[in-house]
């Protein structure tokens, strides 16, 4: 929570000013009844119309001053809250983009979405309302206490006794409700997930006529979210009436004690009446404070959730390797990795690639091909072994340095709703010539047939392109900055053979100096590679060129025969 409130610090000056204005405004407003009293008590009996006019005008003036100061304070509160939220969300988003893949997995995506949206609204609401309502209540409380203490210290003491009780009660209630509010927010994530799943899987759901079941599933999530929310609110609802009861018991106690004091001649009944009047002001102040507590409990629960993301530990670079840097552009040396740390997904993998060479990786589903790429991109740290890039240990390099070297196409990679051009450039500096070459090489000439060309907009996830068009656009994106290293993860599965063949030829011709790592199912896609790794269950089953593997690796030969058979049959 502290981490979240720190975003208010840059506005400490404005906040102080706002609080000051609100303070003045509240005092001015309390001044109004005093003038009224003065008119009735002192001016009315004299019958002095000039005085009446004067004080009446003063009252009007006062009312206007209250208005202007209150309006200004409220506007400033809104402004402060807006600036605060802007900065908070910015930092939160920044942090989300640098979370490690493991951290994203742990938070889950629907949870990150909820935190970025609904939790930030709630915190915004808390700050805004705190600034608008949070000043008046304490003033009323403290002011009321001071005046009543001056008037009747003994009776004020009785009242003072109830304060710890009330404070303790508020603390208890909010302590219990904050985790409940956090739970409610968490239950809301399930709704996000359900909507996301249903929108992306609509075809399958409709095809299997599971719509009714999906409604039930949503209904359960909805029920759970509503229940969690209700529970939190119900807990909070105790505070207000409890406080009212406590206060009024105190009031009765004041009267009884007052009665004893009057009986002994220590005070007069009139004083008790006046005391009770101030009591009402005090009561209003406390009611206000209770309200603030309610708002805060919700906000704090959300703030804690935001804090969890903001405080997620940054990546710590492992100690630098002891061994000397090996020759080569991309080097894996005895790399092992496991996602669940039980069964290795990559087991003692080594290879060396010189600049401009091509590595082909082939192997059955789940053999660790994509994992290898993820390690190379440093999405995950290897459990053992070292990866070297251009003679430097990957684990010691700055993230920007690593990532600026790569062009990557994942399986079913990400496109976003913007123009094709924006998707191609992907926020990188791309020259016209490089772009054109990339498009040509990737066989993405379909762009020419689109009326607006590269300026045409894609829909979300590029769903208005066919699978093959998406893949070619992604390849063009990977090439557009002339990367040092190109990673292609089975990126031509949706291309027909003809396009695929043209793509490979163009790639070899125009991007000869680029080190390429190609994961593929088809041997045809990698047969010309300088080195081919045959992976199975995270282990290297065979390595070498196409010809060598045909001779040495039975699995490779079987694959080749199967695929050639496919074509030749």
């Amino acid at each position: 929570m502290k981490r979240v409130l720190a975003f208010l610090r840059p506005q400490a000056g404005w906040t102080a000013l706002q609080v000051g204005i609100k303070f003045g405004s509240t005092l001015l407003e309390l001044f109004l009844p005093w003038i009224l009293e003065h008119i009735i008590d002192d001016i009315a009996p004299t019958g002095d119309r000039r005085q009446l006019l004067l004080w009446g005008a003063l009252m009007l003036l006062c009312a206007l001053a209250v208005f202007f100061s209150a309006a200004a304070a409220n506007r400033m509160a809104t402004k402060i809250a807006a600036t605060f939220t802007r900065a908070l969300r910015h930092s939160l988003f920044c942090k989300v983009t640098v979370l490690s893949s493991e951290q994203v997995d742990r938070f889950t995506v629907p949870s990150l979405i909820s935190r970025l949206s609904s939790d930030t609204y709630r915190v915004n609401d808390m700050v805004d309302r705190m600034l608008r309502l949070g000043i008046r209540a304490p003033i009323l409380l403290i002011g009321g206490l001071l005046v009543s203490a001056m008037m009747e210290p003994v009776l004020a003491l009785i009242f003072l006794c109830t304060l710890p009780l009330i404070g303790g009660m508020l603390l208890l209630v909010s302590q219990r409700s904050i985790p409940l509010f956090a739970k409610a927010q968490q239950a809301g994530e399930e709704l996000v997930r359900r909507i996301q799943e249903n929108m992306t899987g609509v075809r399958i759901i409709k095809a299997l006529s599971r719509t009714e079941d999906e409604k039930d599933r949503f209904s359960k999530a909805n029920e759970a979210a509503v229940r969690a929310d209700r529970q939190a609110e119900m807990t909070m609802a105790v505070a207000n009436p409890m406080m009212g009861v406590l206060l009024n018991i105190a009031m009765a106690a004041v009267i009884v004690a007052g009665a004893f004091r009057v009986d002994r001649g220590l005070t007069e009944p009139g004083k008790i009446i006046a005391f009770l009047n101030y009591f009402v002001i005090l009561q209003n102040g406390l009611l206000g404070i209770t309200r603030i507590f309610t708002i805060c409990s919700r906000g704090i629960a959300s703030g804690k959730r935001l804090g969890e993301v903001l405080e997620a530990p940054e990546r710590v670079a492992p100690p630098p390797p002891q061994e000397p840097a090996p020759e080569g552009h991309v080097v894996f040396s005895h790399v092992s990795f496991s996602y669940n740390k039980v069964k290795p997904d990559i087991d003692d993998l080594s290879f060396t690639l010189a600049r401009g060479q091509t590595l082909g990786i082939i192997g059955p589903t789940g053999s660790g091909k994509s994992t290898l790429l993820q390690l190379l991109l440093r999405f995950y740290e290897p459990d053992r072994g070292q990866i070297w890039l251009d003679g430097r240990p990957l684990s010691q390099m700055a993230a920007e340095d690593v990532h600026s070297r790569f062009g990557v196409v994942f399986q079913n990679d990400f496109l976003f709703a913007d123009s094709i051009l924006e998707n191609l450039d992907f926020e990188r500096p791309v020259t016209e010539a490089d772009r054109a070459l990339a498009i040509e090489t990737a066989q993405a000439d379909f762009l020419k047939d689109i009326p607006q060309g590269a300026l045409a907009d894609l829909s979300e996830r590029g769903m208005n392109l066919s699978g093959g068009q998406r893949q070619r656009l992604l390849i063009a994106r990977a090439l557009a900055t002339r990367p040092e290293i190109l990673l292609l993860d089975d990126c031509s599965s949706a291309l027909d053979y003809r396009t695929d063949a043209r793509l490979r030829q163009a790639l070899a011709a125009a991007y000869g100096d680029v080190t390429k790592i190609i994961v593929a199912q088809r041997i045809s896609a990698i047969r010309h590679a300088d080195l081919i790794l045959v992976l199975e269950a995270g282990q290297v089953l065979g390595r070498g060129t196409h010809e060598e593997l045909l001779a040495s690796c039975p699995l490779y030969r079987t694959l080749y025969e199967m695929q050639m058979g496919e074509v030749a049959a």
Partner: protein
Amino acid sequence: MSVKGEQKAISFRHVANRGAFERPVQPAGQVLRRLWTYMRPHLWGLLLAAALSILGNVIGLVGPRLSGRAIDAILGEGGVDFPNVFRYALWMVGCYALSGAMTYALSRLMIRISRSIVFDMRRDAFNRLVSLPVSYFDRHQPGDVISRISYDIDTINTSLTHDLVQMAASLVTVVGSLLMMLSITPLLVLVFAVTIPLSMAVTRYRAKRVRPLFRERSAKLGAMNGFIEEITAGLKTIRAYGREEAFTRRFDGKNDEAVDAFYRADRFACINGPIVNCINNLSLALISFFGILLYMGGRVTLGNISSFVLYSRKFSGPINEFANIISDLQSALAAAERVFRLIDEEPEPADDPEARAMDDVRGHVEAQALRFSYEPGREILHGVDFVAPPGKVVAIVGETGCGKTTLINLLMRFYDADSGRITLDEHPIRSLPRADLRRAYTMVLQDTWLFYGTIRENIAYGKPDATEEKIVAAAKAAMIHGYIESLPQGYDTLLSDNAVNLSKGQKQLLTIARAILIDSPMLILDEATSNVDTQTERQIQSAMLRLMEGRTCFVIAHRLSTIQGADQILVMDKGAIVERGTHRELLSRRGTYYELYAAQFQGA
């Protein structure tokens, strides 16, 4: 070989609509009436709440009288009537305990009602969402829909129900105080004849102006949510390219718009309170001024003025409240518009009333002169005909974007053809219940879809009542059983977002297992094994062949090996079927198919 200009299968029609929330604005009255339909089932609860609230107010008024009595019993030094002081003090405590209990009951009741309304609204919005045609999902961002179902519905309910009860309860106070003031001195009430219309006019005017601001606020938050939802799906790619900062800048743009829209609405709304408060203070000043003038003229007593002022305070309290409520209401209305717009989307047109359930599908599919366009003027299919006899395999080949997937969309009635018709067993598919038609097919798509649930649930998704043996058998046939068994939790492993690092191929195998489990008369395989390696593909081939046996199959694949055995191959180009026949027939024709086929050797 000439490079053929490709079919413009791309439809950009939807994209133009993105961000277009500007449909005709619904009048406030209409939106309110619809909101009322959600509150109506809770009519008795709401009435009870209003009653509790009024009663609470009344008891609240009794309290001061009791304390007054108690104080009256304190006559002075040595003259305190202790029994009465104690009695009234006790009464006071009892009275407030009662009022506290009532306040608590009231809050509980209101929380219950408002959460129940939230539940109903969310349910209605979601149920409508899932009954919308596929085209809706092709052009709406999940993030925006999430924002409607969560943020907007929450906004409607944070205040609405509470406000209504508050308004009903305070109406009593307003009327009561007005009567009291009239009885004291009607002349002074004239002051309100100025200030109340004034505050009403101001409130009305401001309400009108603030509503578009709130509308903007909801829309921009929705847009930001849409962006967040979209980008979180691409975090890995963004990191792979090291574009974190650039995308944060993009986010900043959306964030700025959302914060600014929020600020503009809030900035406008936040001075409603001070304005009305000011008008109230104005009345106070006027009342004291004219009251004293009247007193000086001997028309009223000082006591009168003092109680008049007290009542006028009671009177203006609720008026103040009204102003805040009206502003809350505007934000609720703006949010409600967005929710109702979702609920009002046209669902898939109802099945033909004459539609008869299909009980025994043979699987004879015919298409005649199919024409289709996603957007007017950009036709994707230009008159497609074919016959798929029961149990036969029809393969569809053609370059990327030639209309293959569109054809599948029409077969499943995800979209309806503009002209021409498709029949299933001689029934036009438009005359069949959609659910029956779709259930007649099993579909395996290239884009695998798995949901948050156990592996078992995912495999059994098409047949939730499948036995454990059948599920395991399907997984074995799809060559994924071994992998599942190797997981610590086996079939009970939860497929959360990334926690289990399934490869794309493994995901595809799971969806194939899902398809194997469904026993439907027809099959659609759209690049069903594109992410599966050759060896595994070979291993599951027997399962696939068994799956296809005796079923009408539509197969889209780039690996021509998959389709060589097809009974009929349709070669599509630019939205039309240019060649058809068996593998051998087409090869001997040396046309488009031959070219596609030859390209494989070039690559190899």
